[in-house]
């Protein structure tokens, strides 16, 4: 029985709350119950992966033997054996990792472990090792004492990474037992954690225990031992957690003739307050259930996936879900990355995930359906046929539901596990404060029943899978559950999910098992729940970073305006001023690769400027537009600081491929293309990838009135605004006979373009092209293609011009795009063409039918304003970000000095309001900002204003005096 140190350390790094542990006094512990727990838990782990849960040498059998020999040598350092017939006992031997190395040194070697599975595997393993025959014995222990070992028969007792995870009461009893089983002068060598007392729930058989050194020595003394020495344990991996005062050590004890005191006395000496009992866990006391095993398993699954062992990865994923206790840890990121890793690895092999699913048949379906039929309010059932099938398996408690190889309840004891889960959920602070719990994932309903029985709060359920629900209602009597439930939604609604019972008072609890099998839908539900709340409850500082130049530059401004409109805290990082220097390279360096190198160096420099800006005034979210000049190094540094990095990749992913290198640096990437684009960018390492089409800014893109002169300059029966890509040149050359104006760059100067292209093909400002849109009768909107003639038959995304034209109330003919139909209704809100011929016909038709044009543009404008503004897009983007990062951003906000400052300002209402106002507009409310608000104001000064000015002048005076002292007055 050993715990992998590597994961313990990793889990501490990865999970900031794992170390929190405040205990309440424990009542008398039932050792039998603990022993039983240990056995069950370790049997489960051994069944999953015996080597992994034991040591850092888990990648192969050789590695296991090697690390076993290394660790045994550390334990036995300096021991001279009394005789050639010496006996070694290892307590918590697992599958015998250490004992092979002991065979040559001890005549008799005994391994004992509470896990019968471990001992079974150990015996099988050593059956193939001849030298163990006659010298090695394995014994299944009872987890309480060492009654299987004769008194006075052992010379050396060792234990490595075993006592460290045992409940303290068990450790105390073992110490006494060591005295009994050792001979006079016998030695005990133990690997322990000493330092800052670090206690966990007594039921936890995985988490390490760290004891105060003096208490451990005293407990050993009371158990009949004296201390030889305590030495730090140093391994190739980090085993001590210095920042938490946890030191991994080897302890050497020698047996005295003193008789051990009782288990209670030794136990009290070891840990006077005792370990915490499950019923004593209190969120308000700061206890946090870490879900360590779940977390460690997920990380192991990821590692396996990375190694390409996708079968084991999937098994481990299932194992992780099985031992998940709570959704308090948001695992969506890691889950998504593991799943995408597995998919990538399996892609070549076309591996099908085969699940053995049997149709669920039961006698409860009709009764349950009757109970459901009675429910009318807050119930939505989307029982789509063909949505997969689930399997029902029987346990001692009743049926449980499996989906895609994943048990959605506890696979063996669903009732007890559900009660334990419900208890934990209800002890969480956020749940205590809420009025309505919405559970994501129904499974067979055990946990929902437990919640309903233990809480008076409103309980609702969202079950994503109709198949799971069907299996559940077939297999169990859920009539009373349905009566008590407040809200219920089953299946995937069409389009965006909407839940009328999900309100501001709701707290969403996600069952990781269900999250595992329906990740995308879960993300959308979370977006609804946390996203909507995030928009009003969170006030992160959001920076928008545009490119140096180009068509995306104004879009950064539109996004900034949208954020402002959404009452978010905005910091606009406008780097367009750096563009002029970039142009200078071309005067000096002509070779493209050299230019690229220079450009990279320049971007690195600009990135450093941004990093300094973020150091001076930290941001919480960085939204980069496509081509934003920020390097991977700086994005990595920002992420290390907890900044959420976002890229809105508003480019054709096939044409612009820099996402391959850059995707990995972003937590979120939003694309204007669906399907493969999303998958490939995700596979390139982006945290999460979502589709987010372009939009318009009604403040900029709007109908404008113009003078006759302006209309003459900007207007035309037919116009096009945009760059001269191949397909446009090829198509528009055929329109030379029309009254047609072309505006934009990169057009040829030959015929017929020399006549069509306006104002020497210069770049236009948004204000100018909006005038063109407005002054033109038929605007052409042909999406660009460098490869194809005319209309790209596989064109998917919709360009910004489409939305901008619509918002301007300008008539447009747009080429057919596959994503267009969900954005505008063709024929009614927009007119599309599939070929240049059709375009030309439509030009003629619509030039002749101005009333029809007017009707279409009116509807198009209404649709654009209703659904396609940047405010809509940014709100959606933030909902998605907040759905995943709600807790992260909330924690960040709560730990921010500004938040604390604003809270502390509350006793001074005007000061508080001023700080809040400054904070909400994106500033840190420091003295300069607050004073700036005052000095730009007018009229009498309030008392608060006078006090702030007073502070401002004090500081100035002190600075001046300091300068005077130095004779350096500015």
């Amino acid at each position, binding site marked *: 029985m050993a715990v992998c140190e590597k994961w313990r350390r990793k889990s501490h790094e990865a999970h900031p709350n794992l170390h929190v542990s405040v205990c309440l006094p424990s009542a008398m512990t039932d050792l039998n119950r603990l022993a039983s727990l240990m056995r069950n838990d370790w049997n489960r782990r051994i069944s999953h992966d015996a080597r992994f849960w034991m040591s850092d040498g888990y990648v192969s059998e050789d590695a296991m033997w090697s690390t076993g020999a290394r660790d045994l040598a550390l334990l036995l350092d300096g021991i001279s054996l009394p005789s050639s017939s010496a006996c070694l006992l290892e307590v918590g031997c697992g599958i015998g990792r250490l004992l092979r190395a002991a065979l040559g040194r001890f005549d008799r070697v005994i391994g004992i472990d509470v896990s019968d599975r471990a001992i079974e595997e150990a015996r099988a393993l050593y059956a193939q090792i001849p030298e163990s025959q006659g010298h090695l014995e394995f014994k299944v222990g009872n987890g309480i004492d060492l009654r299987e070992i004769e008194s006075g028969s052992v010379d050396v007792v060792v234990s490595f990474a075993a006592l460290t995870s045992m409940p303290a009461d068990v450790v105390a009893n073992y110490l006494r037992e060591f005295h009994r089983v050792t001979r006079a002068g016998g030695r005990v060598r133990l690997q322990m954690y000493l330092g800052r007392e670090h206690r966990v729930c007594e039921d936890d058989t995985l988490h390490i225990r760290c004891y105060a050194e003096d208490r451990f020595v005293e407990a050993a003394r009371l158990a009949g031992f004296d201390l030889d020495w305590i030495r730090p344990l140093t391994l190739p991996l980090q085993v001590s957690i210095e920042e938490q005062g946890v030191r991994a050590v080897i302890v050497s004890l020698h047996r005295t003739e003193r008789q051990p005191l009782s288990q209670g006395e030794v136990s009290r000496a070891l840990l006077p307050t005792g370990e915490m009992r499950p019923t004593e866990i209190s969120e308000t006391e700061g206890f946090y259930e870490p879900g360590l095993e779940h977390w460690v398993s997920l990380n192991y699954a990821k590692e396996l996936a990375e190694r390409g062992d996708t079968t084991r990865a999937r098994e481990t994923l299932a194992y992780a879900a099985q031992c998940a206790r709570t959704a308090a840890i948001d695992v969506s990121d890691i889950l998504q990355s593991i799943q995408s890793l597995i998919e990538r690895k399996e892609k070549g092999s076309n591996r099908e995930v085969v699940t053995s699913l049997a149709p669920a048949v039961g006698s409860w379906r009709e009764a349950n359906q009757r109970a459901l039929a009675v429910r009318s309010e807050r119930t939505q059932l989307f029982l789509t046929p063909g949505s997969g099938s689930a399997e029902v398996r029987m346990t001692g408690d009743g049926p449980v539901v499996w989906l895609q190889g994943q048990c959605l309840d506890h696979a063996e004891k669903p009732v007890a596990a559900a009660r334990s889960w419900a208890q934990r959920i209800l002890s969480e602070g956020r749940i205590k404060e809420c009025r309505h719990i919405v559970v994501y994932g129904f499974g067979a309903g055990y946990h929902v029943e437990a919640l309903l029985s233990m809480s008076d709060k409103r309980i609702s359920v969202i079950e994503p899978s109709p198949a799971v629900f069907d299996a559940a209602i077939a297999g169990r009597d859920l009539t009373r559950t349905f009566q008590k439930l407040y809200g219920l939604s089953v299946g995937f609604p069409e389009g965006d999910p909407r839940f009328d019972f999900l309100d501001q008072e709701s707290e969403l609890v996600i069952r990781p098992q269900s999250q595992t099998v329906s990740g995308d839908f879960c993300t959308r539900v979370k977006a609804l729940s946390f996203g909507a709340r995030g928009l009003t409850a969170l006030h992160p500082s959001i920076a928008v970073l545009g490119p140096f130049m180009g068509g995306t530059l104004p879009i950064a401004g539109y996004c900034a305006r949208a954020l402002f409109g959404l009452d978010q805290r905005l910091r606009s990082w406008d780097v367009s001023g750096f563009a002029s220097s970039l142009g200078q390279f071309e005067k000096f360096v002509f070779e493209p690769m050299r230019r690229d190198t220079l450009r990279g160096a320049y971007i690195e420099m600009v990135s450093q400027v941004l990093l300094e800006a973020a150091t001076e005034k930290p941001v919480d979210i960085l939204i980069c537009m496509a081509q934003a000049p920020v390097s991977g190094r700086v994005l990595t540094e920002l992420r290390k600081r907890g900044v959420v990095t976002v890229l809105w990749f508003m480019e054709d992913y096939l044409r612009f491929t820099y996402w391959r290198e850059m995707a990995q640096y972003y937590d979120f990437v939003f694309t204007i293309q669906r399907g493969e684009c999303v998958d490939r960018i995700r596979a390139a390492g982006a945290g999460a990838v979502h589709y987010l089409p372009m939009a318009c800014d009604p403040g900029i893109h709007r109908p404008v009135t113009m003078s006759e002169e302006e209309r003459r300059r900007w207007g035309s029966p037919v116009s096009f605004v945009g760059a001269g890509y191949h397909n446009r040149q090829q198509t528009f050359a055929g329109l030379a006979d029309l009254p047609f104006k072309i505006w934009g760059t990169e057009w040829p100067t030959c015929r017929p373009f020399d006549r069509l292209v306006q104002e020497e093909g210069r770049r236009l400002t948004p204000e100018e092209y909006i005038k063109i849109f407005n002054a033109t009768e038929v605007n052409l909107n042909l999406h660009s293609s460098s490869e194809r003639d005319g209309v790209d038959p596989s064109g998917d995304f919709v360009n910004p011009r489409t939305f901008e034209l619509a918002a301007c109330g300008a008539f447009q003919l747009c080429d057919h795009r596959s994503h267009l139909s969900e954005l505008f209704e063709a024929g009614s809100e927009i007119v599309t063409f599939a070929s240049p011929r059709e375009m030309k016909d439509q030009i003629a038709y619509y030039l002749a039918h101005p009333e029809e044009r007017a009707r279409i543009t009116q509807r198009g404008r209404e649709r654009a304003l209703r659904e396609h503004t940047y405010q809509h897009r940014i709100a959606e983007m933030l909902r998605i970000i907040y759905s995943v990062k709600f807790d992260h951003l909330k924690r960040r906000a709560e730990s921010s*000095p*500004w938040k*604390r*400052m604003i809270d*502390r*300002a509350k006793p*001074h209402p005007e*000061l508080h309001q001023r700080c809040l106002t400054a904070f909400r507009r994106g500033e*840190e*409310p*420091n*003295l300069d900002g*607050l004073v700036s608000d005052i000095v730009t104001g007018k*009229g*009498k*000064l309030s*008392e608060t*204003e*006078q*006090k*702030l*000015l*007073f*502070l401002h*002048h*004090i*500081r*100035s*005076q*002190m600075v001046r*005096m300091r300068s*005077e*002292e*130095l*004779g*350096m*007055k500015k």
Partner: protein
Amino acid sequence: MKRRYPDKRNILLVNITRLGDMLQATPTIAGMKMENPDAKVTVLVEKQFEDVCFSIPTVDEVVSLDLGMTVRSIAREGEGLIDAYQYVDEVVSDLRGRSFDYCLNMSSSAYTALLLKLIGIGRNGGWTADEEGYRVIESEWARLFASSVFHQNRQYNSLNLVDVFRCSADVEQHPHALQLKVTEEARRYAQELLAEARWTNNGPLIAVQAGASQGKRQWSPALFARMVRTLVQKHNARVVMVGTQKERAIIDPIVSEVASPNVLSVAGRTTIAQLSAVVEASKVLITGDTGTMHISVAVGVPVVAMFLASAYGFETGPYSAGNLVLQPIIACGPCNPNKPCARPDCHDTLDPEVLGELAMMRAQGDVVQIPPGLVDPRRAVLYRTDFDEFGFYTMRALNSDAGDGLRRYRDAYRKMWLEDLGGYQMASVQPNATTRSLALLNEGISGLEESVRLAQQGRLLIGELIKLIKDITAPGSALGAVNQQLGEIDRKIEQVGFHYPVLGPVTRMFCFSKENIQGSEALALASQMGAIYDDLQRRCLKLGAHYAAIA
């Protein structure tokens, strides 16, 4: 003497940031007590000077303000700002609770003005702020202070700031010296320190304060070393170097350079009280314009002081009779205190050996004359400090001040202000005959005539304005036109002050008076403005008359 608020019961004196300023306030405090024996005087002071205030004989209570902590809190940002704000809240609340009936703010800083606005004391002798945060200076003496310390005007002022403070508080009776108690404990400590020396000389004990408050006022250690060497080698003197720990960077090299058992450094080893006792034990202090200089004067030990760079003896010289002040003669001096100087040539105008000589002379007794040629009047003027017949500090040249081209202006201003603001009778002033005076002005101070003419024009326009205000049928445009003309006149008056630097003090006073017009009723405002034009005209005429009389 003209006085606004002669009666005071519960006085707050705000003098926060400098040791020297605090000591310079002591004649005013003592004077207030002399004139109002039952009054209580509370001093608001920066925390580090709190102890000094306990040594001022006439202070009843001290309230300290921890500016260092406040600025550190602000620098922490976040919660630090709230800490600072709460601290201010508490200070204001505490001071409000003390119900002061009079406040003399001796600081011209914006923050003390705001603080006094927050406290809301009814009668003020110095700076405060109005409801919109703009400065208010009720007392004309305080306005004179503000005008005089305005850099371009400094050289035309010969009134010591101690007296200007005092008059701001309407205090006439006062001791002719700064005030500071030396405790027996401090004296004992000083004796112990001095006993550490292994003197071989037996001449007078001369204290030397070598450190200065500003870099450009810092006489070089090499020059100090020459002076100290002269004292110990030529004059058999014993020298004690005083100063702070920070000043040891200046003092230690001097001590090493001289390397004499007759030089003892106690720098960094004394509190202010103990420093006072060390200085008290000395015969003379040689110093720049420093806080130690004021301490010395306050404990009755004469000083030989050099006023280098921006330091100006008339303004902040040692406030007692019989001190010796060396003021370099240099075109750029006294320079702007807010500007650094890369080449302080004024330092070279003073001869270290002469300084030593002067100190020895003063150690032997009051110096009313010096041997001819001892101090070259082309390089520096040596003054002896004194008091005039009205009890105002003055300095009289012991060599020749012929090289001081501004003396006549300064004297004329002195007489004009004492007469105009203080109500003192000046024998030399001619009857107030405008025509004659103007004729005189033309021969004397350039620009005076223009100022007087502008003031008269202003006065006439105010008359028109008052008529228009009273005439309810007058069109608004007429009022606007007159206002516009007045604005133009005021602008020209201010320009005259810049164009003719000698008129800077009167035009600056005009500007300050305008700033301090109170109320919002049109007639009252016009009436106040009329009086300000009258003040300007009267002051210009008096200035011209005094200038002529001096000639």
